[in-house]
């Protein structure tokens, strides 16, 4: 540990001696983002994840949540309310859900904008890993304060035109906030997600806290990840839409 500290201090001294950095470019910021997370190799070495956490939906109301993800873009979210398990899943093509709370235990297809949102969430790497090979367009919009913290502002535009603004803190270039325009009940709203509690999982820095809220609204939803396991065995059929009724009612 002592050696590490010495090394860190030496690097810091080196940094101090460097001339002022030239104009910051998008590529440099993204490179730093990847390095801060642990590097491309470490990121790519993770093939699947199981995340356990809690979702707070209102004062005193919370639900256990489990998220399973598998490369390249499969995801299954389960959450439990009053002993009933809701499921949302995506296998790379089809999105589906079981929402037993309103009485239906049949899996239902998810379509339209909801499906796109789900596919975005299922994207294992996000827009910055190997960004030049990806379909999104990235644009650096300079720096802006996010809740008092200076941040790099990057606009991510998907092929279909939807835009997300991602803010990376200027110290580590890690994501601290994303703002996306989305449709809720037919109205366009801006949904902000703040990221925090970065912790290392299998050599990769991962946010363990997310606070989601509609921009301008008072209350939001907080999700805390209590445990993230990397490279767990996840069979493909966990993500595929079941033909028949699943065991949602147990």
């Amino acid at each position, binding site marked *: 540990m002592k050696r590490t500290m010495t090394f860190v201090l030496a690097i810091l001294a080196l940094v101090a001696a460097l001339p002022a950095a030239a104009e910051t470019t998008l590529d440099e910021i993204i490179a730093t983002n990847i390095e801060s997370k642990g590097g491309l190799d470490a990121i790519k070495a993770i093939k699947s994840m199981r995340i*356990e956490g809690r979702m707070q939906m209102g004062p*005193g109301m919370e639900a256990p949540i489990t998220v399973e993800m598998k490369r390249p873009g499969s995801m299954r979210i389960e959450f439990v309310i009053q002993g009933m398990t809701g499921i949302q899943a995506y296998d790379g093509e089809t999105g589906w859900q079981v929402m037993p709370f309103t009485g239906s*235990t049949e899996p239902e297809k998810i379509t339209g904008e909801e499906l796109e949102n789900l596919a975005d969430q299922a994207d294992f790497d996000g827009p910055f890993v190997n960004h030049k090979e990806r379909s999104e367009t990235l644009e650096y919009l300079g720096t802006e304060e996010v809740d008092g913290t200076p941040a790099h502002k990057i606009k991510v535009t998907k092929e279909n035109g939807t835009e997300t603004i991602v803010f990376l803190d200027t*110290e580590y270039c890690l994501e601290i906030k994303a703002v996306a325009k989305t449709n809720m009940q037919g109205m366009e709203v801006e949904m902000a997600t703040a990221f925090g509690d970065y912790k*290392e999982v299998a050599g990769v820095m991962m946010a363990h806290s997310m606070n989601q809220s509609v921009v301008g609204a008072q209350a939001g939803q907080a999700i805390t990840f209590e445990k993230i396991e990397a490279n767990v065995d996840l069979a493909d059929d966990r993500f595929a839409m079941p033909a028949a009724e699943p065991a949602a009612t147990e």
Partner: protein
Amino acid sequence: MAARGVFLAGLVLATAAVCPLTGIAAAEIDSNTFGDMQARSIGPAVMGGRIAAMDAVWIDDRLHVYVGTATGGIWKSDDGATTFEPIFDDHTMSIGALTIDPSNPETIWVGTGEAWPRNSVSVGEGVFKSTDGGESWKQVGLTDSERIVEILVHPEESDTVYVCATGHLWDANEERGVYKTTDGGENWEAVLQVDADTGCGNLAMDPQEPDVLYAGMWQFRREPWFFTSGGPGSGLYRTTDGGENWERVTEGLPEGELGRIAVAPAPSRPSVVYATVEAEDTGFFRSEDLGKTWTRKAQSAAVEGRPFYFSLIVVDPVDHNRVYKPGTTTALTTDGGENFSTIAGSTHSDHHALWIDPRNVEHLLLGTDGGLYESHNRGRSWTFRNSLPVSQFYQVSFDMERPYNVYGGLQDNGTWWGPSSALTPVMNKHWDNIGQGDGFHAYVDKKDNDIVYLEWQGGRAQRVRKSNGETKDIQPLEAKGEPKYRFNWNAAMHVSPNRDDTLYIGAQFLFRSRDQGDSWERISPDLTTDDPEKQRQGESGGLTIDNSTAENHCSIYRIAEQPGNENTIWVGTDDGNLQLTRDGGRNWTDLTSNIPDLPANTWVTGIDPSPHTPGTAFAVFDGHRTGDMTTYVYRTDDWGKSWTSLVKEPIEGYALAIRQDLVNPKLLFLGTEFGLYVSVDGGGAWARFKGNVPRVGIREIQIHPREHDLILGTHGRGILIVDDLTPLRNLTAETLDAKGALLPSRVAFMTSPSSSQTFNGDNEFVGSTAPGGATIAYYLKKRHMFGDLKIEIYDPEGNWITTLPTTKRRGLNRVSWSMRGRAPKIPPSASLVPQFFSFLGPQVPAGTYKVKLIRGKESYEMPLRVEPHPDLGHSAEDLAAQDKAAARLYALVERLTFLVDRLIDIRDQAQTHRDGLGEKDKLGGRLDDLIEALEKERAGLVATRKGGFIAGEEQLREKLTSLYGSVNGFEGKPSKSHLDYADVLESEVAAAETRFAGLLGDRLPAINGQLERKKLQALAEKSREDWEAEQRR
């Protein structure tokens, strides 16, 4: 460890390239120090505020509306004026002109600085432009124009824009007249100027020939005590070459000096042009030759009244003879000006903006002193769009009810009161009107909460009984031999902080009443300068006499009795005297000359005697009505003998109100025309409080002594409340320097969430209500990035209760704890139990809890006091009975869950074995029998039918969970039927456990024997310990 070290090193190395590590900054405050301390709006929007400008555009089939308000910023609607969002909160709130580029609906031009220059008008900061529909703004020039009344964009050339810069109201300035840009605002050329006293009062463009323009130039000036409209500089001008050359038009118009002129060509026949011209004989005029010559039309008071305030003509897009003239109400002619009638009688008076839908001329939007209205029949009937919280308060106060109510008077909208919080968010329905005209001060009688003292303009004081509206005029009247009493437009009124029976009102003299205003004692000589030059309001107005009391001067504006001493009274006047008596009014000292660097006669806008230290007081002054925009804030610690200025960066805007905190003497709040400023070190350093407080004029600052809330009376954004100042009071220099700290909050009272149904659609302002739960505040010097940041709550015995998620921002953070533990685990079923409180854990008992903030490896601890709500009145025994019953049912629910989970577990084990066996296997048959028996048993414990709760199936789970919710949702004693039913359900749970044990006892030995023979794992029941460990997650 090695891997970790390499990782860290990599992190630092990578960081060096573009994200240099910065050193630790000094602990100074800025706007982000206050972090999550956010104001909340309680509206009201039941009445509007003044709408000064408006434009709207159809994009595809959706109508987008931009509303520019007098002092509340710009609001945009993307749904045809149903809902609105503010889009200009970082800039001046005063809007004079708003124009959408006709060839690009995303380009919006805004002229700031309202140009309907009444006495209470605010100031602008030039021209702003947005190219993204109002999402972002750029200031593009004319920054010293102060006010702009019109912007015209060339219909084909987006970069060619004309600005009608009205200019300074209170002094001369050069940057006024007609300006033109041809490069989208990069450069501006003054194309028509008269002199430094004359600005552009109105500008219009020919709808077919955009190089033809008409400009009404206007000479005008306001002083604190006088207004002049008109002079030799005024005149009507026209150009036919895009402003290169202008000719003054006179033929057919009044002779002599002119005042404000409005002009408008008819879109459907532009050779027809209409004008109103203020003069000795103000009139309405029509030209049929592109404005060269004019003919006087109908004489009508409806068209001619108050030209300085109403100077707008709107011609129907399809009918050149149909002309709207907004004024005190809107006048309409349908015959080209021969006859006028008034319309829109149901709307608030004083109309300043009118938009006619080009797709459907029946459809109108109207902006008034009381908000926005919409008509679908050309103005015959109107709907109020009550979703804009832009009410313009002068003073506000509060009472001691629970929740407390807020009282206040508004520009042209009387006096209102409403609750600080409610079961729903505070909405329009919660507000009640109790005073007419323009409202100002309003105070509840401290001995009778039903009585309110209020006033309307010019000191017309009234005593109003809220419950029945009974109103008595109580204004002091001249005693024999007394001179005429001079009351300000916004006459000072004050209630004693020391005695429940004492009310003050100020004319040039100070009056005191101790009998609810039935009689008044004069306790001062004339405390003003009594300058006769400043008492000519009867002649005020210029060409059009306008004596509304708005120019009343040499009068008392502020009164403040010293906390702790009823005989010490501070008085401030509109003509700049700051007076003090320390013997109940027998002797008065004018302190004005003791104040350094304060120009003579600068209006005293606020006095706050310290609630902590006798002799210490704060005073703010406002010279903007003479063109002096300097901020003046002073403090004295020796009864006014000497004063120190507290003004520092980043304070801006003329000062309107100041308040020292009731608990921490170093905590100061300052309101200026441009927002709220806070100091935590007695005025050494200031930061603007930006948490949901726009750059709006803060006219009054109050602190509620019981709830510790900051109550802001804003002139343009209604009433804002910052809940619970306790964390801010504890933001000491030491705290600011720490990396993190827990901060105390007010005592948390236990209440259950409640609600009230409303189905009002979207066209109503929805405010907010006080946050429920216990607030936990913490300070972070930097945004938290790595490792956990969480809050754990422990009961008085030290047992963990719950863990709360946190926000991570720099500065103050606030999270709420519901004062409940985690919800019980409920058995899986096919039905949701529709009992809200079954989703929640039981409320914790009163006591002192421990809050632990964990920040990476550091942790901080703080006690948190939880108390029963004092208003609910449940006895300790009843509260304990509820705690006991809820805990018992909680345990019973979990006992059932454990049973059902075990049942399912065994069933699934059996099913797994069954699936691995052949069809005819004997063991298979036994397993089938077991599974069937278990499923039958389960169907009696939990709802299994499809369809959810609407299917109405109620088994033991549903009954038990519902009962738990019922008991959990009421703080007091559970009813006997609840307790009896708990007995019934407990015996049912016990019976089910017995049945389950029997069911397994009959079958498991044989099955497990066979499994053993097949070398398969025996069916095993989960232990309670294992089950509980699974739930701990």
